[in-house]
């Protein structure tokens, strides 16, 4: 019986973690890995009386260097669902893009508006399959037919459902603000102010967060009346209509997306924030109100 050639069985399906083990072995021996572009980050979300408000800073770091002073960390998932991402920038971008496409296909199949819990399950399953090697920590928020929802998703695939949440390196600073000032039933102005304070707290006290504050408000417009006159009676300056019948993608609802305002506020004028001597500018950009 010749024992010359032993044929190796082909590898079974599934993700192969061999290279992950090799990386760990190398770093154990002192080999430095290349610096990933991380979003150091402070990201927050809170539920207020009409929906969900998400907030994020805009600094992206590569090791000690700020490689992007104004990156966008609030990613689109569905017209009624947005997701903030912390961790490795590539991971958060690709995971949110991928699930956003899956949600759109799901909307075409079902003819209904996407639910937040659908996005949650898709994200959690994907992240669990990669056992934490996809370094994406997410704050997912949105409003659907069952109401407003806010969830946090950790890189290993566990999720929490909370009324207010913070993630990222600045999460401790932001959570301190939320724990002292959050209450149920905030209105929109109070909610935006609280989210801004929390992100500013992260920006000032965490080295990995900085630059500007992005805020995203997601609400549900009240029952839409077919009565056109009431609608035209109001005066809107900037309005975009997506009038879709028969529920392809939007469930027959109108989507109003109007940029609220872009306001630059000197830190000095931000209430309750005690400032350093030098003049630093914080701009509240991307105040986008998305109502569905």
């Amino acid at each position, binding site marked *: 019986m010749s024992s010359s050639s032993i044929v190796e069985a082909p590898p079974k399906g599934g993700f192969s973690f061999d290279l992950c083990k090799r990386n760990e072995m190398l770093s154990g021996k002192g080999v430095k890995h290349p610096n990933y572009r991380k979003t150091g980050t402070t990201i927050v979300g809170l539920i207020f009386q009409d929906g969900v408000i998400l907030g994020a800073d805009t600094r992206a770091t590569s090791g000690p260097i700020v490689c992007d002073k104004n990156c966008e960390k609030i990613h689109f998932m569905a017209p009624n669902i947005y997701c903030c991402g912390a961790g490795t920038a590539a991971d958060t971008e690709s995971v949110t893009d991928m699930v956003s496409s899956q949600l759109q296909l799901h909307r075409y199949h079902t003819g209904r508006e996407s639910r937040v819990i659908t996005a949650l399950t898709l994200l959690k399953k994907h992240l669990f399959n990669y056992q*934490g090697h996809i*370094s994406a920590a997410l704050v997912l928020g949105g409003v659907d037919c069952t109401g407003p929802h806010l969830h*946090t998703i950790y890189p290993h*695939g*566990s*999720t*929490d459902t909370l009324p207010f949440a913070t993630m990222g*390196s600045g999460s*401790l600073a932001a959570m301190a603000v939320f724990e002292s000032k959050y209450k149920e039933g905030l209105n929109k102005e109070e909610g935006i102010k609280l989210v801004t304070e929390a992100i500013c707290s992260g920006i000032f006290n965490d080295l990995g967060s900085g630059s500007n504050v992005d805020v995203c408000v997601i609400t549900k417009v009240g029952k839409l009346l077919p009565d056109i006159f009431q609608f035209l009676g109001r005066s809107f300056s900037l309005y975009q209509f997506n009038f879709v019948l028969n529920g392809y993608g939007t469930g027959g609802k109108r989507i109003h997306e109007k940029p609220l305002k872009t306001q630059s506020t000197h830190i000095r004028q931000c209430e309750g924030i005690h400032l350093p001597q030098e003049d630093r500018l914080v701009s509240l950009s991307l105040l986008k109100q998305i109502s569905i």
Partner: protein
Amino acid sequence: MDTTLQDLNAPHSMGTTIIGVTYNGGVILGADSRTSTGMYVANRASDKITQLTDNVYVCRSGSAADSQIVSDYVRYFLHQHTIQLGQPSTVKVAANLVRLLSYGNKNMLQTGIIVGGWDKYEGGKIYGVPLGGTLVEAPFAIGGSGSSYLYGFFDQVWKEGMTKEEAEQLVVKAVSLAIARDGASGGVVRTVVINSDGVTRNFYPGDTLPLWHEELEPHNSLLDILNAQGQSPEPMNI
């Protein structure tokens, strides 16, 4: 700074104290509510008692991700089983499904689960499925990091055939004892009572729990005291 960052990237684990006891009519499941990521409390009000079916609930401990995924899969299998069987599934089936997943993936999973429920054949039953995937049927089960402090306590106070009120008080007392001694357990105490009448969820906030040896009464923070007097507190001015 580095160690804090490292801790924040640690896997989300539930330090936990989980308990399941049977009484003369059903079962009571109890748990604390702290989920930690390293030394940071990621969620101080989490719900570790998860529903599988109308009559079967599980208490989860260990890695948050692993236990959530296992309970999701078991809920899915149980749902199919209920459809195929044509009647509510038994607690024994639920426990065995948990055991099959835990044992079959024992190298990859790190989760301890207590399965509790009521069915018409056996009444109230508690099954423990600790790390490793063994299945243990017992009149009461404890799990999680805080359970180490409760073994002696249960040996002393456990008795068969308690009433619902006695059993619930026992569960709340036990969880609060573990919270007092275990750093990885804390928050509020949640209980779920399952019997022939259905399921009742209860919630005991941290300040209603009894105080143990050397624990102090909660005092209002200076902030609350100043706010109550009507003046808003000024942070330190240099």
